[in-house]
């Protein structure tokens, strides 16, 4: 299949920040490459400067989901290009690099630096990470979003995905703004802002005070946002949010997604992406994935 001009063997990606192929290779060895669970690999979000991430604890288990306050730890653009990119280039699938900048010049530098590398097939602009204040603001606002996209559009000829924030009142409007500013596709949803308290002290459990909710708990919200965005934009949509089965993936496709991404479910099983792809293919084979009378 084709996603924004990039050829993929199937529609199942990993959600950014939920699969570290380099660490997984240390744990699983070459078997990981022989049975790679995704049709394209999306990197964890890269920022211009290196980040340590938030203080622990960074995880809270919620009903049918989890809250994370990871805080985008990464080696920074230079470290990513010199250390991570060469290893990621060895993966058997196309590489999508997620980037986030705290202002337009940072964004431009990131897109230019990453886009220049031929190992990179596509870029994803993360304007919606709830763990970094500006993320929420930019991705929740159509004007901010189109300005951000416009600031980087001409810095690369590679396809550009814009990852929307779920905190927007009207995700469709933000998606439309991104499309008009030159985005080749949009991805959604990112995590919902949430928090939890320590069962005894009732202080915030997470080191960062709050974090992002993900997993099956957010699926209904994600599916609704994908559906409303699909009504507004023509560019391809990468749908995600609580996808844990081929049934879920088929729902997102029927709601208007061209591809899906698996995040939290990979934590329960590193091979979840492969299972979901197989289940989805079986449904498609049986004609039960996109029945004619479905949403689209």
């Amino acid at each position, binding site marked *: 299949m084709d996603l924004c001009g990039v050829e993929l063997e199937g529609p199942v990606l990993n959600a950014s920040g939920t699969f570290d192929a380099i*660490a997984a290779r240390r744990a699983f060895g070459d078997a990981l490459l022989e049975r790679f669970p995704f049709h394209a690999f999306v990197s964890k979000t890269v920022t211009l400067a290196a980040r340590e*991430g938030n203080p*622990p604890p960074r995880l809270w288990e919620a009903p049918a989901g989890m809250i994370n306050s990871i805080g985008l730890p990464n080696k920074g653009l230079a470290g990513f290009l010199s250390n991570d990119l060469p290893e990621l280039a060895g993966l058997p699938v196309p590489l999508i690099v997620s980037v986030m900048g705290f202002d337009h010049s940072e964004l431009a530098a990131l897109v230019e630096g990453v886009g220049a590398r031929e190992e990179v097939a596509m870029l994803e602009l993360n304007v919606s990470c709830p763990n970094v204040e500006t993320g929420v603001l930019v991705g929740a606002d159509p004007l901010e979003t189109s300005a951000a996209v416009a600031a980087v559009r001409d810095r690369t000829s590679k396809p550009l995905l814009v990852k929307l924030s779920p905190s927007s009142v009207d995700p469709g409007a933000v998606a439309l703004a991104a499309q008009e500013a030159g985005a080749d596709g949009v991805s959604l949803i990112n995590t919902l802002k949430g928090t939890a308290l320590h069962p005894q002290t009732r202080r915030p459990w997470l080191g960062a005070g709050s974090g992002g909710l993900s997993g099956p708990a957010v699926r209904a919200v994600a599916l609704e946002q994908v559906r409303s965005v699909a009504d507004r934009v023509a560019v391809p949509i990468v749908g995600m949010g609580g996808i844990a089965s081929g049934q879920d993936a088929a729902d997102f496709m029927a709601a208007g997604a061209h591809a899906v991404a698996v995040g*939290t479910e990979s934590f*329960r099983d590193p091979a979840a992406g492969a299972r979901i792809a197989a289940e989805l293919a079986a449904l498609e084979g049986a004609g039960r994935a996109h029945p004619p009378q479905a949403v689209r």
Partner: protein
Amino acid sequence: MTASAAEPQRTLAPPERRVAEVRGVRRLGAYDLLTARDPVGPPGPRPGQFYMLAAGDRWGGGAGERPFLPRAFSHASARPHPGGGVELDFLLEDVGPGTHRLGELQPGEALMLLGPLGAGFRSPAPGTRPLLVGGGIGVAPLLCLHQERRGDAQVLVGFRSHGHAAAAELFGPGARVVTEDGSVGTLGLVTEPLGAELDADPAATVFACGPPAMLEAVRFMCAQRGIECQLALESGMACGFGACFGCVVETVDGYRRVCVDGPVFAANQLERVP
């Protein structure tokens, strides 16, 4: 980097969650000993490595609509199964919905399993004497190290009470036991006799696992004496294979993921145990 900071040994895991068959759950004082047959897993998990476990059925729907994520457990013992595969023992302490559910499993039921994961204990330098120091449920990874050493390791383990001390049996007669209520062995904390042990043998290599406060005391006492020490840490985990960046601990090199850079760390990689 000092020798002790060199990467400890790790046995690779298949890159997918698999189904193991529960052989049984045996009550051992305050703990449960869960035995399962891992049909296709690698035969030689390193002592100190761990597995992510979940019940095959009804993982969820417990207290507070949990558990949802799998749970990390060090294997207490691993032996080839006559019918093929590996038989694994896990020592469980029921502290919440996940450990509670695993303790309920019946023979023949499915146990979802991923592993072995992480970096285990490194063998001590030749000529040094292994000293295993465990506190409470932390004795689990020391049990298989003890088996591997075939009795050449000294064992010093501490427990809250008589019920918990039942786990000491698994080390056989040689183990020195300390309890906080004096009900078994010496009264006190495991760190009290430790000082004398260390002074008696500066050539010891310490392998420790237990509650953070205990590990910090062990780290400090070894550092004072320049004795090599390996610590098996715990941390809240979502994935166990480096995917989520959730399990980090602060080290001298910054935050490190306990699930891939640990759980076993050389004590000198930590300024203190958090």
